[in-house]
């Protein structure tokens, strides 16, 4: 229980700052909900991830209720909140989500466009090829730039 509590506490504290006074009550709510819904836990993920998902819903509920009944902002004291030492969990989650989205878009592109884009090295060809000769290098850069623009247009149309 200690491990799970630490994970949920850490997540909620990061999401609710500066309202850290709410964290402990919400941790309790999360664990009570988890106990009630334990039979719905399918086991497709770890218990910690499942608890953090419940915590996420609790945070959304809280902010939704705040939107419905806005209070005076002056009551919030940023000084009393204390420092948040944990690196942003949500920022890393957003980063992972963005990577996932790029991967999905690349998977939908035709093979020629993808190879033109990545060249199998993780870099674009525009970045990856240094070239040796002067005018040759310039010509290569121009064509690489044109290819990069085509890829950008193709990716843009897929994302939209």
């Amino acid at each position: 229980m200690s491990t799970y509590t630490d994970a949920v506490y850490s997540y909620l504290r990061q999401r609710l700052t500066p309202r850290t006074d709410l964290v402990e009550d919400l941790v309790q709510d999360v664990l009570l909900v988890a106990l009630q819904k334990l039979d719905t836990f399918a086991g497709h993920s770890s218990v910690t991830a499942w608890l953090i998902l419940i915590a996420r819903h609790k945070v959304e509920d809280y902010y939704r209720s705040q939107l419905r009944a806005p209070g005076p902002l002056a009551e919030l004291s940023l000084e009393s909140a204390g420092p948040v030492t944990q690196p942003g969990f949500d920022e890393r989650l957003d980063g992972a989500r963005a990577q996932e989205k790029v991967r999905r878009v690349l998977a939908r592109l035709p093979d020629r466009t993808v190879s033109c884009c990545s060249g199998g090295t993780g870099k674009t060809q525009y970045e990856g090829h240094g070239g040796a000769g002067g005018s040759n290098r310039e010509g290569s850069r121009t064509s690489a730039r044109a290819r990069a623009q085509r890829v950008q247009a193709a990716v843009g149309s897929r994302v939209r």
Partner: protein
Amino acid sequence: MSEDQAFLRLAERVDAARHPTERAPARLKSRLYSVLMRQQAAAGALRSLSVIRSEGRPLCVFERSLELLPIGEHVKAMNPCRVCHARVLGERFEAAPIF
């Protein structure tokens, strides 16, 4: 894939979920333990202290004393923590002088 499933998949991969950098205060853990035990007791009979120990779970010194007493099993399954001074101290102080 629903938003929740995507979140679960990503949370699995993010280290913060597996290795939280902040620890919950001890008094919060005591409080949660009491709340969850209360909830469990309300839902049905708890397991006896003797059964818990035989399954290899540790008992605190007070629970162990109760377990050794020649009393019925139903008394040993009555969530003794709810009347324990250690619980009260543990829920209010970070490093409670319990024993």
